[in-house]
């Protein structure tokens, strides 16, 4: 009976398929039943009037078939947030050339760098079928940010210019505008970020949890039931965009979570109202479901090697590659080696704010930092640890970036012991102990403790090589590893002399992206935590910058913040890159090292070579996983 009915169903389906495909809009098999039962409108009605047509030609993508489950492995339940990084539907987002293009928005217009008008796609709907309108943006701005109870945390920092907020204006159902008094160049990059500024919420859904729209007493009662402190806490919990913990929450992403946490396996199903289509006008995504299994991060490489993931890069390391390669044939996957998009895989950060006065003076001397850079044998590091596949480079942008210049990556990076030694002698560190270790001006031995967060074996290996290299220039290195929190706290407090971390987060930058990493703007910058804190907190905490070259970087950054055209921004970026390279504020080793990306053999449209980075690629995000499909 079952067999028969299944057969009947397929015949029907086939008939339906041929029927609609002749109308050039074949229904997606996964949804066909619902559409047939009138639970869902047909594809045409589900799409906006002007859907986003993904350019398949530009990125060498092929037209796909619907269906399949994409299996991912994650190390913790919090990694739920990674899915919205991967799926990467944004109001505006980075295109493959790293320019910011409309995505959920149909168009956007920027006036004088301070006035941003967005127009939504007419007929665009949330995953529950409710239209997406200006009201959803108004709800975020007026009912959340400006609300006296929900907006307690204040206005998101990217929406403040000189401490001033924008004026928000709804123009019609689809159009709205944010206007600042001065340019706000960090607004668009914030919207396009992997962990973006979400300036919209599904108002129709959220209003039932909002005291202005629902009965407060009833809400408070529900809040107690849901073990929330009050209605505001419950509202916050229900509205999370980045980590889709609430399966009821309508989404604009390609897949919607259907599993409430806590769980060890999360299933995401396709959003029937997703706004992107392939060149034939077929609605994306091709893949029906994503499944995310949460396992211990230590076994992810092992599980991937036995074919338990269709697309996996997170928690895989370069050192796992030989193991992964071994399992390829048996388990039908391929290990591709993408470029890691960091300024330097492992970089040293001399702490210019160190508490030790003698050391601080030494570290602030550019000759010392240059000598540190010249003293590293990057070729050996590359050969031993990265199989010669990476590029020896300073901590700067990668050749893939439009802003790249050879001099930025090569300045002070040749392995030149004599020059390093003569620089150190010249700055007055010419006295040595019998074992060859230099003496500081106050007679102490030049013993430097390099601190690490102790998170990767790769880092430890690189440091062991560097320890040997530095012995040759008369510096004795000790490595101390701790945990990330302690590591950071010590650096912030000035207890650390040199810290080790990965280099620039965004090494494929364009002039439109924020150059904040090149200037003291944030406490988290390990080479100048106190100065960064000072300018990052508007002089409320930290210490004023007392070094001309660092001041120059900050001034350039401030100019960028006020620049209203791309030419100026490009010039400022170049000035900052060249200043950073010349002053060697951080010491890079190699970049462009490889990230293993494991891809099932029948998964199509995943690029052969990509850049694996948090920003701007959002890991897989800009390669549009909604266009990936299974050739089965």
């Amino acid at each position: 009976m079952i067999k028969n009915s299944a057969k009947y169903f397929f015949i029907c389906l086939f008939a339906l398929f041929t029927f609609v495909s002749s109308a050039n809009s074949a229904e997606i098999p996964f949804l066909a039943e619902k559409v047939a039962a009138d639970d869902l409108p047909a594809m045409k009605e589900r799409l906006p009037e002007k859907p986003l047509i993904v350019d398949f030609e530009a990125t060498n993508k092929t037209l796909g078939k619907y269906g399949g489950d994409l299996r991912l492995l994650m190390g913790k339940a919090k990694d739920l947030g990674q899915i919205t990084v991967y799926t990467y539907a944004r109001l505006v987002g980075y295109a493959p050339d790293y320019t910011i293009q409309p995505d959920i928005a149909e168009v956007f217009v920027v006036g004088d760098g301070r006035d941003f008008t967005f127009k939504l796609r007419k007929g665009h709907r949330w995953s529950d079928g409710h239209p997406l309108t200006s009201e959803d943006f108004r709800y975020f701005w007026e009912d959340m940010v400006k609300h006296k109870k929900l907006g307690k945390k204040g206005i998101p920092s990217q929406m403040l210019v000189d401490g001033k907020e924008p004026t928000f204006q709804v123009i019609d159902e689809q159009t709205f505008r944010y206007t600042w008094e001065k340019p706000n160049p960090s607004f668009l990059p914030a919207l396009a970020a992997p962990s973006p500024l979400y300036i919209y919420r599904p108002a129709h859904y959220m209003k039932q949890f909002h005291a202005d729209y629902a009965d407060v007493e009833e809400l408070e009662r529900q809040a107690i039931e849901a073990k929330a402190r009050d209605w505001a806490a419950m509202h916050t919990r229900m509205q999370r965009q980045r980590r889709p913990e609430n399966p009821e929450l309508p989404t604009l992403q390609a897949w919607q979570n259907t599993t409430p946490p806590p769980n060890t396996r999360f299933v995401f199903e396709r959003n029937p109202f997703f706004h992107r289509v392939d060149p034939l006008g077929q609605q994306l995504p091709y893949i029906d479901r994503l499944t995310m299994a949460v396992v211990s991060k230590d076994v992810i490489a092992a599980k991937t090697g036995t074919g338990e993931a269709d697309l996996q890069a997170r928690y895989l390391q370069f050192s796992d590659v030989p193991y992964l390669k071994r399992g390829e044939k048996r388990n039908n996957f391929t290990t591709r080696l993408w470029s890691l998009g960091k300024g330097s895989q492992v970089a040293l950060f001399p702490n210019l704010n160190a508490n030790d006065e003698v050391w601080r003076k030494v570290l602030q001397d550019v000759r010392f930092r240059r000598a540190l850079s010249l003293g590293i044998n990057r070729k050996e590091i590359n050969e031993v640890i990265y199989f010669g596949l990476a590029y020896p480079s300073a901590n700067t942008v990668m050749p893939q970036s439009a802003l790249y210049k050879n001099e930025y990556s090569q300045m002070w990076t040749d392995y030149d012991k004599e020059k390093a030694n003569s620089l150190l002698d010249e700055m007055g560190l010419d006295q040595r102990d019998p074992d060859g270790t230099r003496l500081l001006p106050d007679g102490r031995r030049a013993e430097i403790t390099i601190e690490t967060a102790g998170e990767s074996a790769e880092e430890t290996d690189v440091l062991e090589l560097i320890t040997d290299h530095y012995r040759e220039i008369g510096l004795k290195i000790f490595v101390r590893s701790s945990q990330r929190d302690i590591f950071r706290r010590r650096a912030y407090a000035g207890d650390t002399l040199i810290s080790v971390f990965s280099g620039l987060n965004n090494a494929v930058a364009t002039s439109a992206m924020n150059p904040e990493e090149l200037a003291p703007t944030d406490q988290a910058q390990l080479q100048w935590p106190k100065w960064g804190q000072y300018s990052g907190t508007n002089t409320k905490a930290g210490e004023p910058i007392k070094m001309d070259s660092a001041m120059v970087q900050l001034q350039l950054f401030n100019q960028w913040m006020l620049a209203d055209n791309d030419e100026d921004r490009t010039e400022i970026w170049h000035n900052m890159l060249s200043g950073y390279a010349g002053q060697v504020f951080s010491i890079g080793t190699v970049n462009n090292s490889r990230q293993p990306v494991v891809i099932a053999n029948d998964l199509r449209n995943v690029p052969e070579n990509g850049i694996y980075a948090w920003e701007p690629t959002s890991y897989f995000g800009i390669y549009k996983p909604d266009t990936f499909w299974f050739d089965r």
Partner: protein
Amino acid sequence: MSDSHYVNDQPFDPKSIEVLTPEQEAIYLAPQKKLIWWKFKRHKLAVASGIFLAIMYLMTVFAEFLAPYSVESRNSDYTLAQPHDVNFFHNGEFIGPFVYGYDKELDLEKIQRIYTPNKDRVVKLNFFCSGDPYKFWGLIDADNHLMCADMEEPVYLLGSDTLGRDMLSRIIYGARISLTIGLVGIAISFSLGIIIGGLAGYYGGWVDVIAQRLIEVVQSLPTLPLWLTLVAIMPSNWSQVAVYFAITIILGLIDWTGLARAVRSKLLSLREEDYVLAARLMGASPKRIIGLHLVPGFMSHLIASATITIPTMILGETALSFLGLGLRAPTVSWGILLNDAQNIGVVALTPWLIYPVVPVILIILAFNFFGDGLRDASDPYG
């Protein structure tokens, strides 16, 4: 005739009833120590273990000489090389111990270095030769090694690690920390055990009650989580030496309870003995009575139980370092070496990185057999 009690006026020779052979006589007249030794000797496994342990501890003393390379010496041309096979015959001819040099190849497809023995390159092994210079015990400059290769080519009898360092040398150096940590730890637990157990057993009463409860509390703590917390609150800026001592102290502080119990129960029975009463009547202080009259009475037992607890300490250090919570590189211990081998690929591709497990297992077994033998021997009449 009234007195019918008969007394034989012939001299009595006890040997006429029970004739002792010279061996038997030796046994009856032998002091306690000798008896223990005799009994111990009969436990062949224990003797073998004892010899093995002695060799291992000697090794830690002469690590610099025994290790073919210094602990930091690396050859970045030979990373993750598999162990060399030692051969004696080349082309059917005996030429003494040698290995075949490796041909290197970089397999960029598999991202792996491939080493194949080249039958034409004979690398002879020399003994008592000059190699990496070192400072013996941190004092004397020397460069003598038990074994080195005669060419520039490195020889890895147990393979090399990710940076091209000799595993054999690192295992030998690692023994220093891994083996001594047990001794330091045991010294602490020993003193704590004897003092607390001794006081509880000798005085009894409320002292005993408090000690007993304390022991129960410490024993009921789950050890692994406790180690983890204690290690976690250790300041991160401590030097490796300080961390090492802190870990031994932590291990020792947890481990004294079993010993304290044993001491207490022994003392409870021994303090009722007549000689203790005699000593007390003569005005000996409790310190003297415990130290001079009671503890020697069960010292052998203490030593036996100590040898059995040392493995716990060694395993403790290995476990903590393996989890990345104990000592850290560049210190070398077996646990740290094993920590490097956590990667799944190791088991499949570079199994020699797990070799430090072998000495750990052997040492633990040896200590157990040795302790067994000692315990049996400590009661020679049993």
